């Protein structure tokens, strides 16, 4: 028997060995260990059906251990009888469960489809990259295992992982790659993809030599690994992509789905065992939080690293809730069973509302403070104990939910608040730590990545309360959260107004306020303290704008829109929402120009100084227009990238994106809904040229006129608060007559009311 300490790398089921655990030992070796981990699932239903199931199971070739038990589920505080079915090897459980459901589809099943990593986490407190102490017998079997870390610690060191990056030299969906670039520690290799035999032999040797823990690829899921595996099979040269020999490589198919008002495309996935594969192009939100964020998500959700890199945050929060349930001995239903309880039409009108979204006061404002509730919805769930099983439960201390004729019990912490509380605490601690750290500090980047990963989990947690397929979802709980949210925001507004502030804008969990003479962070502390006191929720100052401009709608300049604004904080940083630089389909050349213009205006300390920077901004704009006309703008910066919302036959009018897609399909390149099509605008018919066509576009064909229009429109967005309309800007720029006194003429911000036009 030996004792070892190391970091948990991977954990999966194995047909012969039960559970395989990979440990990165402190001495640097990667140990493959086995562990016995019998799993139990449950069936409930009429006694005679359960008796039949018992008989059915005893007649199986490898009969599971059966027993009668009493358990409770989330919605029944009283235990009820169930049949407990224990399977010795967890790898065989899914197969047995399939047979059981085929024969007894009428029974209710619990704990039937849980990932093994969650069961392990609930039993041993493990999570990916946790430091563990294990006792191992002579045959490599784990006798005991203790976890030394907690996922809620702020500074968990990342062990010395061996990362091998593997990428083709060019985007394979644009042109056919010729080389493979490989980097591992201080070694780099470049292998020609053709002929395949020497490439495969070399790659195989490199993989064996470095034995990486993580294979970090670009287009690895969608092109590279499938291609390599195909070549390996054709040439009969095995490629040791898996660390575990003898197990196949897991493929998941590509799919497009619709969520939160947009269509999402997920490429196919290639998952390895004993080693992780992460494709930077196919990982969810990789651009947002990177590897650090993925590790943090894996820690708090206890899902395997390569799974967590690809799943949506919703699956992450689901996993956390399942762990809480497992630890508390609450059964996890295989399918959700709760349906919505009936409401009257009036109740529905009050309940079926989201957060409050105001229309801001259009125009330019100075010394504006933006204050936000910290993780408002999760904080509400924890503060008011909102959970599927607590909403609607009477108890002596129950709280009434505003607007809804419902109560929430407060005596027993619900499943959702219990799951969220440590995460929320860690987030608040992170925020506090970040606020204290100087800008140069090396830990800042990691903390920011963690905070970003937490944010996604917390955001989706709210959505999951109302999601029809979530196992622990219930629409009434979801409605309770938004009802409290509206109440809290209105209380904050009333507090601000009581204290003499003008509320310029409100957006779900944030307020923009100002009061004459207040411009320093300390000036706003009394307001924050009062709001926190009246609402019971934490609120923080996001920043103070030197100036901020709330823009009207593009269609009608009398109509304000909730989320179209830009401003400069006191530290000089910009915040923009809903304008061109923020839009994904804006060509880089235009987005960058707009940003430069904003940075230039951002030098103004006060709103009234903005005009001083106007000449500088206009000359910048003129230079960019000249660059466009003289062909100096790089073609790649003129690329428009638009997400496809449907397949080609479904486009009723041939939009530019549809025309580009058509060009691609004529050369047998297909794109799925949710993927982006890239093109440039060209002169004449058909007006676009798809970027991923085999032949590069002719630079002389670029539709300079169209790009100029787009550029001027983006510029006018920025200049609008100075009273310069798009038409005025265009006339003057194109005529080459920039008469500044004329541009200054309509000085006021938009008038409170537009003057009425004379008849006719």
């Amino acid at each position, binding site marked *: 028997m030996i004792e070892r300490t190391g970091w948990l790398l991977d954990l999966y089921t194995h047909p012969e060995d039960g559970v395989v655990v990979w440990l990165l030992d402190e001495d640097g070796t990667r140990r493959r260990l086995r562990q016995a981990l019998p799993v139990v699932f449950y069936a409930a239903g009429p006694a005679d059906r359960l008796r039949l199931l018992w008989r059915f199971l005893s007649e199986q070739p490898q009969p599971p251990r059966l027993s009668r038990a009493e358990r409770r589920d989330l919605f029944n505080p009283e235990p009820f009888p169930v049949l407990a079915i224990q399977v010795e090897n967890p790898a065989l459980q899914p197969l047995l469960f399939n047979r059981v459901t085929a024969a007894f589809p009428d029974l209710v099943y619990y704990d039937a489809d849980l990932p093994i990593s969650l069961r392990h986490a609930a039993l041993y407190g493990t999570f990916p990259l946790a430091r563990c102490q294990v006792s191992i017998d002579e045959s490599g079997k784990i006798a005991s295992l203790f976890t030394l870390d907690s996922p809620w610690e702020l500074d968990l060191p990342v062990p010395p992982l061996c990362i091998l990056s593997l990428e083709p030299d060019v985007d394979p969906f644009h042109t056919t790659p010729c080389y493979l670039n490989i980097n591992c520690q201080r070694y780099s290799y470049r292998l020609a993809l053709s002929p395949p035999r020497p490439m495969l032999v070399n790659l195989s040797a490199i993989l064996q030599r470095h034995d990486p823990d993580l294979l970090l690829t670009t287009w690895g899921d969608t092109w590279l690994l499938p291609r390599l595996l195909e070549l390996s099979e054709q040439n009969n040269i095995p490629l040791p992509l898996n660390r575990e020999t003898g197990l196949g490589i897991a493929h998941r198919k590509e799919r497009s789905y619709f969520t939160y008002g947009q269509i999402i495309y997920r490429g196919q996935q290639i998952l390895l065992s004993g080693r992780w594969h992460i494709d930077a192009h196919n990982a969810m939100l990789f651009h947002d939080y990177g590897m650090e964020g993925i590790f943090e998500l894996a820690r708090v959700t206890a899902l395997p690293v390569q799974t967590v890199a690809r799943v949506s945050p919703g699956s992450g929060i689901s996993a956390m809730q399942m762990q809480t349930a497992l630890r508390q001995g609450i059964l996890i239903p295989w399918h959700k069973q709760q349906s919505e309880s009936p409401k009257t039409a009036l109740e529905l009108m009050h309940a079926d509302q989201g957060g409050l979204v105001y229309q801001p006061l259009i125009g330019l404002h100075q010394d504006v403070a933006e204050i936000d509730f910290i993780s408002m919805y999760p904080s509400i769930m924890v503060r008011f104990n909102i959970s599927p099983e607590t909403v609607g439960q009477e108890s002596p201390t129950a709280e009434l939910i505003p607007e809804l004729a419902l109560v929430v019990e407060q005596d027993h912490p619900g499943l959702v608040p219990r799951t969220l509380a440590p995460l929320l605490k860690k987030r608040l601690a992170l925020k506090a730590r970040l606020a204290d750290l100087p800008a140069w500090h090396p830990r800042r980047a990691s903390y920011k990545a963690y905070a970003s990963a937490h944010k996604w989990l917390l955001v989706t947690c709210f959505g999951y309360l109302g999601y029809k397929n979530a196992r622990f979802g219930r629409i009434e709980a979801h409605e309770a959260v938004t009802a409290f949210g509206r109440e809290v925001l209105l209380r904050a507004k009333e507090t601000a107004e009581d204290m003499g502030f003008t509320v310029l804008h409100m957006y779900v969990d944030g307020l923009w306020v100002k009061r004459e003479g207040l411009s320093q962070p300390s000036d706003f502390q009394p307001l924050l303290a009062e709001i926190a006191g009246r609402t019971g929720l934490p609120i923080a100052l996001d920043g103070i704008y030197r100036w901020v401009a709330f823009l009207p709608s593009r269609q009608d300049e009398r109509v304000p829109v909730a989320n179209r604004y830009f401003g400069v904080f006191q530290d000089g940083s910009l915040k923009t929402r809903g304008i061109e630089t923020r839009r994904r389909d804006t060509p880089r050349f235009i987005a960058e120009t707009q940003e430069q213009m904003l940075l230039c205006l951002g030098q103004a300390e006060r709103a009234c100084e903005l005009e001083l920077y106007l000449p500088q901004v206009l000359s910048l704009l003129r230079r960019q227009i000249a660059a466009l006309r003289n062909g100096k703008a790089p073609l790649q910066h003129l690329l428009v990238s638009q997400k496809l919302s449907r397949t080609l036959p479904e486009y009723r009018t041939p939009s530019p994106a549809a025309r580009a897609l058509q060009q691609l399909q004529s050369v047998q390149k297909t794109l799925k809904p949710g993927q982006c099509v890239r093109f440039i605008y060209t002169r004449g018919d058909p007006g676009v040229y798809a970027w991923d066509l085999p032949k590069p576009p002719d630079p002389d064909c670029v539709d300079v006129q169209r790009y100029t229009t787009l550029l001027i429109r983006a510029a006018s967005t920025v200049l609008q608060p100075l009273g310069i309309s798009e038409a005025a800007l265009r006339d003057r720029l194109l005529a080459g007559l920039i008469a500044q006194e004329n541009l200054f003429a309509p000085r006021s911000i938009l008038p*409170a009311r537009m003057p009425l036009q004379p008849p006719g």
Partner: protein
Amino acid sequence: MGRTLPSITQVFLQEQDSFARFRRALRRSDQLALDDLFAAAHQHLAAAAYAAHALPFEVFLLAMLLEEHKEVIRLRRLLESALPLSND
């Protein structure tokens, strides 16, 4: 996005659409004044949503009236400051 009821913006646009025939028959100058009224109501969509009134158009009418009254107050103040002594 999983909502059972139309959002307040959708309700507002439906109400505005239902007056398309009325608007068409108005003189151009009156049409523009009518548009002003709807634009005024648009500024209070958040409050209209929160009100969750069974007859939303009543709330929109009140919002129009509210903006009109604000304009009256503004003009009255303007007038009073321009003619400070005329009432004496």
